[in-house]
């Protein structure tokens, strides 16, 4: 167990209020970088921080630096729609997310930080009998792996989500749904903070505002990571930078089968409770849930073209808003309060790339597209295991970079090598 000082609890809150607002210590230590580390993890998002935490907790490796170019969780960790679920069809993608879902369930206590893990249910809507058949196929795949899944017909769906518009004359009438009741939402920023605090308590160095500008290589190994805060030697480097993976790979001397595409999300103004599940519309794409603050948070597909502009654009929002209104007509009378975009790196089969790279001591964790957040704990855990043992953990082995040359693809969407279609 990690030794937190102080440990967070209701009692501690009361005590400190009583003691005249006694200040709390820093959540994670502020340290200047050392000249070198056993492991340097580039990217202070939830994935990078989780990797550091599990390396320290499980593998006994504590000589670690996590270096982040901006602020912790400032990339896709803080830009997603906070959804967790494991309702994937293909074996490899589902196993990893199911492991993550199991880990989420105990993570707040483990990290002594309330991540607001809210398993309020994830409802995926089918719009035809054909889609329902595909959903049954997927639900059965989930159940065969020991996960939870239910198929709801229209009547049961209406009981589950009474606000839903199930008008049979709708443009894309709803036929039923696949529900994963263990799916839900997690307070995204808090995940980065909690892992940072826990990793820091284990002795991991967390270095913010420290962009990487290059690598010094000897043969096929990286010797030194060059940063704006100076050179840092590394025995091993992990690149966990989502949308910027191609840039880092280029610095290290190789290309990746990735394209970076903006995915945007937006929230409405906060209102009192109106929706207590996560719902996904599949005629086009639109997913919506309500935060604990009361905002409806909504997302849709990718921008559809390569982009490093971490912002959205209105044409996509128009489509997503229209679909949300189709599901929940009352949403037409809410106002869009804030929109933002994240840079998703999408691989040629739409799935992640984890494990060895063409550089001997560089481990990749990339290509998560817009599926990365939900997988966080399992990725960190399995990646730490792989780093320590020197061989990919079975959960992440299928995600090897080499699969594009071998043809062992993991294409859940079946859209092929056009990332903008995934």
């Amino acid at each position, binding site marked *: 167990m990690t030794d937190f000082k102080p440990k967070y609890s209701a009692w501690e809150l009361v005590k400190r209020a009583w003691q005249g607002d006694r200040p709390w210590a820093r959540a994670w230590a502020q340290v200047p970088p050392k000249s070198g580390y056993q492991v340097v993890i580039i990217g202070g998002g939830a994935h990078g921080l989780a990797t550091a935490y599990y390396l320290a907790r499980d593998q006994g490796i504590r000589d670690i630096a996590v270096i982040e170019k901006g602020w912790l969780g400032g990339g896709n960790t803080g830009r997603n729609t906070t959804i967790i679920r494991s309702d994937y069809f293909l074996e490899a993608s589902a196993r990893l997310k199911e492991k993550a879902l199991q880990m989420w369930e105990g993570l707040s206590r483990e990290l002594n930080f309330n991540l607001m893990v809210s398993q309020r249910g994830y409802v995926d809507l089918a719009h035809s009998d054909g889609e329902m058949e595909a959903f049954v196929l997927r639900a059965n795949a989930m159940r065969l792996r020991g996960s939870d899944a239910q198929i709801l017909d229209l009547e049961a769906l209406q009981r589950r989500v009474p606000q839903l518009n199930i008008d049979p004359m709708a443009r894309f009438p709803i036929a039923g749904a696949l529900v994963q009741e263990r799916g839900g939402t997690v307070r995204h920023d808090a995940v980065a903070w909690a892992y940072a605090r826990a990793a820091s308590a284990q002795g991991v160095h967390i270095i913010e505002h420290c962009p990487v500008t290059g690598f010094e290589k000897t043969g096929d190994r990286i010797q030194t990571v060059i940063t704006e805060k100076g050179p840092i030697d590394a025995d091993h480097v992990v690149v966990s930078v989502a949308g910027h993976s191609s840039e880092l790979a280029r610095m290290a001397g190789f290309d990746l089968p990735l394209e970076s595409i903006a995915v945007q999300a937006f929230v409405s103004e906060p209102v009192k409770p*109106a929706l207590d599940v996560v719902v996904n519309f599949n005629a086009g794409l639109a997913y919506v849930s309500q935060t604990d603050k009361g905002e409806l948070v909504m997302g849709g597909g990718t921008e559809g073209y390569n982009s490093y502009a971490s912002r959205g654009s209105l044409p996509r929002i128009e489509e997503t808003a229209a679909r949300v209104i189709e599901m929940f007509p009352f949403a037409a009378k809410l106002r869009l*309060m804030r929109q933002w975009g994240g840079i998703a790196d999408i691989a040629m089969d739409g799935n992640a790339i984890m494990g060895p790279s063409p550089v001997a001591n560089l481990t990749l964790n990339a290509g998560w597209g817009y599926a990365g957040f939900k997988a966080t704990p399992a990725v960190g855990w399995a990646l730490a295991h792989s780093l320590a043992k020197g061989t990919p953990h079975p959960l992440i082995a299928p995600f090897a970079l080499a699969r594009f040359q071998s043809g062992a693809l993991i294409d859940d969407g079946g859209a092929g090598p056009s990332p903008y279609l995934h």
Partner: protein
Amino acid sequence: MTAPAQDFRLPNGGNIDRSKPLRFTFDGEALLGLAGDSLASALLANGVHLVGRSFKYHRPRGILTHGSTEPNALVRLGEGEQALPNQRATEIPLFDGLVAHSQNAWPSRRHDLGALAGGAGKLLRAGFYYKTFLWPQGGWPFYERFIRRAAGLGRPPEGPDPQSQDHRHGACDCLVIGAGAAGLHAAQRAVAKGQRVILCDENPYLGGALNWITARIDGVPANAWTRKVEKELTQGGALLLANTTAFSHQDPGVCFLEQRLGPYRHRLWKITAGEVVLASGAIERPLVFPGNDRPGVMLASSVRAYIGHYGVRPGTEAVILTNNDSAYSALRDLQNAQIPVAAMVDLRKGREAPIDTGDVPFFSGAQVVESKGSKRLRGVIIQDRATGTSTEVACDLLCLSGGWTPSLHLYAQRQGKLIFNEGIGAHLPSDPQAPLRVTGAAAGEFDLQACLPDCDVLSEEAIDHDADMAAATQQATQGKAKAFVDFQNDVTASDIAQAVAEGYGDIELVKRYTTVGMGTDQGKTSNINALHLAARAAEKSPRDMGHTTFRPPYTPVLLGAIAGPATGDSLSPTRCTPFHGVSRAAGAAFVTTGTWLYPRYYPQKGEDMARSISREVRNTRENVGMVDMSSLGKIDVQGRDALAFLERVYCNNLAGLKVGRLRYSLMLRPDGLLFDDGTVARLGENHYVVTATTARSGAVWHDLEKLRQAHWPDLDVKLTSVTDHWASLAIAGPKARALLDGLAPDFDTSNEAFPMASLCLGRLGDLPARVYRVSFSGELGYEINVPAGYAPTLWHRLMAVGQPLGLMPYGLEALDIMRIEKGHISVGTEIDGRTTPADLGLARMVSAKKPFIGQALLQRRALQEKNRRQLVGLRPLDGITPLPMGAHITDAPWNGRSQESQGYLTASIESPTLGHPIALALLAGGHGRHGERVWAVSPVASQSVEAEVVSPHFFDPEGGRMRV
């Protein structure tokens, strides 16, 4: 019920229309206002200051501002399905019959039980929820229910929007955002240059503060000058849009505006502009000190607007607190309106008042450390910053000026860089000319004469807007009571300090940890104060703190307006085939597939879907049926290199294809996986027509055109999409030839003259037609193509000729059943983006004699493995139990826990032809497993059925029936 008099209306002045009283109610109380009022000004005219309760502590809150920056005065506007939550009272133009309610208070805004939360304030500090609710494991959902109910602002709206919201496109040479002095001037200049101009302003009026300041321009009062300029601009062809907020400007030359046409009707403008000029002014900041949130605390500039523009007396005794010169104009305006001023407090030490304060007590170098009152301000305690001497002063109005923040939201959205300016304590554009032109107060120009260089300006307004932020932040950290930075989210100065102390010191983390600036006002009045407080706590210069990202929209925009008319039936265009009308008349039940509305089955009287489909299949196999195939993609390929082109894009050989023949063909993706199937028909020496599946027709067209245009421009080949030009009807069944003959073809239809996989171009009677001998069902069949306009004629003639033959139309479902009986593959089920031709038993079609797209990567190791999932047929062992839809294949019945899946069913039907259930499946190593026993299990249906692996070609595997 009679409405009370407007006791707090000034006897004269203001731009309201005193001849037009308007009735309205607030929390059920009947009140009167005037045309030209905002809801806020009308409430103030009636002495209503308590408007609602705050988000977290449920503190009584009043009206802080007079426009879009308002954090406090949020109301529910309207009733029933019309009602809109979270509307800013300061922005709602008053109309007769307006109904508004306060929010976030129970049982009422005056007596709110939620205020008990305020007592637990110390426990509810920034981020408290991250530190507790940890017990027991999985206990959060229990706490969450209470937190969710306590959080949120207004009541969620109910039902659909009774209004329709529209979209409009606009184009101009120059879009000017903001119609204050600088904006009016920019518009004047652009009109003078002969440009097409659009000028928008978020307020119901143009001119901004010119409407109430006492300046004279070109010899007339500022508001009169504004009306004159408005008229000139309109005459000059400019489009003036009041009540219109430019909320998003991210891409070059493209700007999105929301126009409020009425209280409930909004319009989204998409404007393409040659130039965008940002004249959005500056936002006055409040000051942070303990108890700074009571109703009666108001921005100094807003007090001026309420007096000067709305003719309202916002209080009976005022105190002014400032850290800059601009607030002294409020002193003058209060005095002119004969509102007593009890104290003029300037945080700056050793300052002379820039104007004569007369007999108003003047405190220089003093601060406010406490406020009195609860639902209305009753007084403040003023403390000398040097000596600590305190004075209590009674007042019910406190005018705050904490300096001015240039409103650069759109400039920053457009990726303009900001630099911090120590003087004004806020950011300015680093380059006011790029990426868009910023002018006026938004660019830090507070001198009216400088904003109107062509005019003769007489003004007593302060030119220097430099603010003492050090004094302001010091004041914020005095005293014990809560000093609010973000009024809406109840974020206090000590919350900010705490966030920094806990390591959340980056300004973006301060925002996320404390939620400062994340309310519906997007932190317009709080962000800069938070920045200074965070910098102070971090012992950094505000310059080094950077700033949070400016995210659209500038102010919240109705989702209904964003979606616009593209909802309901217009959510997506609906495509119908040329046979739609006749199919409908024939009683078809339709189904939506993609964008298409397609005949699913044709029930006869008293039939349900299953019976209808079964009859359609049997009739086709026994007599003859017809099915609409018009949605298949059709591409006309012509040119000397047409064959060479097709040879490259299909993986099978086409070289031997003679004129008048056609061939089933497969198209691969460049990575070797199966993309689409269809037919290639050779109509002439250099003339082909190829088909694509309905689902992939758009993508196939794009891909083929891309290959032709971008990669192989040297090939002499032209492609034309002719999907919509031809209506296609397939007739199938033993009597299909007799049916075709009944249409009087001008060609020989005998099996010898018109064999399988050939085509005839000719006439059916007087109808020009292309007839292909193909079979989707495994029966003798023809696909008849006629120009789309002849579709109904063809249908009616077939029905007439076919009646004695037993002709019946059939739909998508029967078509699907017959293809499954034949073991034909389909896009979406077997062609799923993960299968190769070999997986589906079509390896022999892949040519080894020619190069084609996908050839190299199809040879990848993993795509050649023996144990890949391969297409097989399944039959229930008992011959009668249906194989569960969506089942997986295992080696044992469902064990209730977990099991390994060896594959899955892609289709499962009860075959009307064979009289028993069958299924198609993708099974690991399936090609070598015919005869094996497996289990088809569906955990969600709690079903396990034992089955035998068989060939997928269930019916007439030799294909004899279609060759007769």
